[in-house]
């Protein structure tokens, strides 16, 4: 059964439209990440689901029940705020119990739920502290605990990891994944960090410019981006996009010519592409390898090297000024300014039509 259903949600602040006709259906127990840059509307959508904002139009249903007219506390959702929003004058125990007391849950039940959450989150020894006496990571746990004790149907996480330092963020990410296994509820997480979205979510909802750009499993989003925005936003470093024109040959598959004159044979079906109009070719670093000058698909000049240890990212400029990123071995001897050849694996390349829509290589089965 579907857990959350959004249908045609629309929201404007005055004349500024922030969400335009957004629809989405979530499976039971699914973990969905709303991924997008600031201003894409992802936080507003989360707040509409929570009831902290009202949609101008559209419906929100949770487990089949319409919730968009209900007050936030009666929707069966729990939220973890970006800045935790703990009550500073209450102890950890009171923070977690506050919502349950308001809902008139019996005292022994409250105690049992708080104890259980504290055990799961390993904050049993902190229950009588106030938030001000705790570290950021501990406060984060309390914020999660405050959500867990409510036994919600849906967890809403607003940038839950953005306030933690890098090491703690990695650990909390793993813990979130574990908590998620133990809890019978669906999760929505808002984030602008694609690594968070890719590692935690079952499906990613990529948002930009008031709309959902693509919904899909993490690898599907990565391998088959619906449009140039998704292609550039997901993946690090970003996919290189270069103008290309259709060339002769290649049989059923499109063969394209780059600005520099080099030709790349893709495995994108020619008949799916628009008959005319400018194309763009999309190349991820792993599709481009470094060769001797003249030996690759085209030549380029190294402008920047990023040594990541197991591999080296080579940022290059093609003769026509286009930029492309290639991958080389970890112990690459290249220097900035070197002339290199780029071997492009056309079989994996993406093509984007004049409208930005993505066309992908046919799976080589």
């Amino acid at each position, binding site marked *: 059964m579907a857990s959350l259903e959004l249908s045609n949600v629309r929201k404007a602040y005055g004349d500024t439209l922030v969400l335009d006709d957004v629809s989405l259906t979530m499976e039971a127990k699914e973990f969905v990440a709303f991924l997008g840059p600031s201003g894409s509307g992802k936080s507003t959508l989360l707040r509409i689901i*929570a*009831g*902290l904002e009202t949609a101008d139009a559209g419906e929100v249903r949770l487990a089949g029940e319409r919730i968009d007219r209900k*007050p*936030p*506390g*009666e929707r069966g*959702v*729990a*939220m973890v*705020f*970006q*800045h935790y*929003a*703990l*009550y*500073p*004058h*209450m102890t950890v125990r009171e923070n977690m119990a*506050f*919502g349950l007391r*308001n*809902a008139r849950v019996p005292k022994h039940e409250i105690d049992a739920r708080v104890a259980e959450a504290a055990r799961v989150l390993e904050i049993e020894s902190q229950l009588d502290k*106030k*938030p*001000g006496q705790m570290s950021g990571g501990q406060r984060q746990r309390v914020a999660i605990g*405050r959500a867990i004790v409510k036994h919600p149907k849906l967890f809403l996480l607003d940038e839950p990891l953005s306030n933690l330092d890098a090491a703690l963020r990695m650990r909390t990410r793993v813990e979130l994944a574990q908590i998620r296994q133990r809890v019978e509820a669906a999760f929505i997480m808002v984030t602008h960090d694609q690594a968070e979205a890719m590692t935690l979510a079952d499906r990613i909802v990529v948002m930009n410019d008031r709309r959902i750009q693509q919904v899909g499993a993490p690898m599907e989003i990565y391998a088959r981006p619906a449009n140039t925005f998704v292609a550039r936003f997901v993946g690090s470093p970003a996919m290189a996009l270069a103008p290309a024109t259709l060339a002769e040959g290649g049989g059923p598959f499109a063969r394209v010519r780059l600005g520099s004159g080099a030709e790349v044979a893709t495995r994108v079906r020619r008949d799916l592409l628009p008959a005319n109009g400018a194309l763009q070719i999309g190349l991820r670093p792993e599709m481009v390898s470094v060769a001797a000058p003249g030996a690759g698909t085209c030549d380029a000049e190294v402008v920047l090297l990023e040594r990541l240890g197991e591999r080296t990212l080579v940022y290059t400029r093609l003769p026509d000024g286009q930029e492309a990123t290639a991958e080389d071995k970890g112990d690459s001897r290249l220097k900035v300014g070197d002339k290199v050849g780029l071997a492009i694996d056309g079989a994996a390349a993406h093509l984007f039509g004049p409208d930005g829509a993505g066309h992908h290589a046919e799976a080589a089965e």
Partner: protein
Amino acid sequence: MKGERDWRGLLFVAPFMLLYSLILVFPLLRGLWLSLNRVDLFGGGHFVGAANYVRLANDPVFATSLANTFEAALMIVPVLTILALLLALALNSAGRGAALIRGIFFSSAVLSVTIVTLIWRFVLAPDAGLLGEIWKSFGWEPLAFLSDPGLVLPAIAITTIWWSLGLPMLLFLAGLQQIPQDMYEAAALDNASRWRTFWRITVPSLRRTIVLVVMLQTAAQLQIFGQSQLMTGGGPSGASRTAVLFLFETAFGRWELGYASAAAEALFLIILAVTLSQYWLTGRQSAQGAR
């Protein structure tokens, strides 16, 4: 400069220290010295030890004036604090209307005590006063606020509340703006009613502001003077004579400067004791409530 303290640094604070000693420390000590002397308008006076204090302790007029002062402060401070908090809650919105009303409520605070008491004498006057007219329109006998010993302190309290509302309201508004909005959102998701949100979120968050307002207003209202001097002259028959008015009459009416100084020192110690005990009573809890 190494190791030893550099005396040249003192030069930088010297002008301030000089001025500070001249206009604060010296008068304070001089007042203390005066209180141990019998001084009148003519002649230098002579040392009498604690005689002024003994006389003060046995002076029924001073005792009454102290009682009046505390009664007025007890009428003013709680009402003022609650009213200012309610006003701040009502006006804590970004709208232009709220800003205008905030300005109107604050405007009384910039008036001088002379104008305020003048306005309120017109309001309170039994014949032709605003309240008197309202009373009459209901067919009741107008109340003689300023000449009835039982009504004069409440009348002064109302005047003072009207006059002093602006600053505490502003302090509460500042306190309210400090409360993070997401805490209210968390409370909404925690299914807290408005009433519960107010008592469990807003009031605890404002705790320090409430303590500050109560302490400031207590210290200020225990020195209440202008209102009773200008509205009633302490009357009728001393029913509105406050401690500072007693001081003023003793010093500048009867020119008993030593005795007045003793009263001033006594009042200073009383105010200090009251505010310090308020601080002590509330200080520990509010330190715990700190984020």
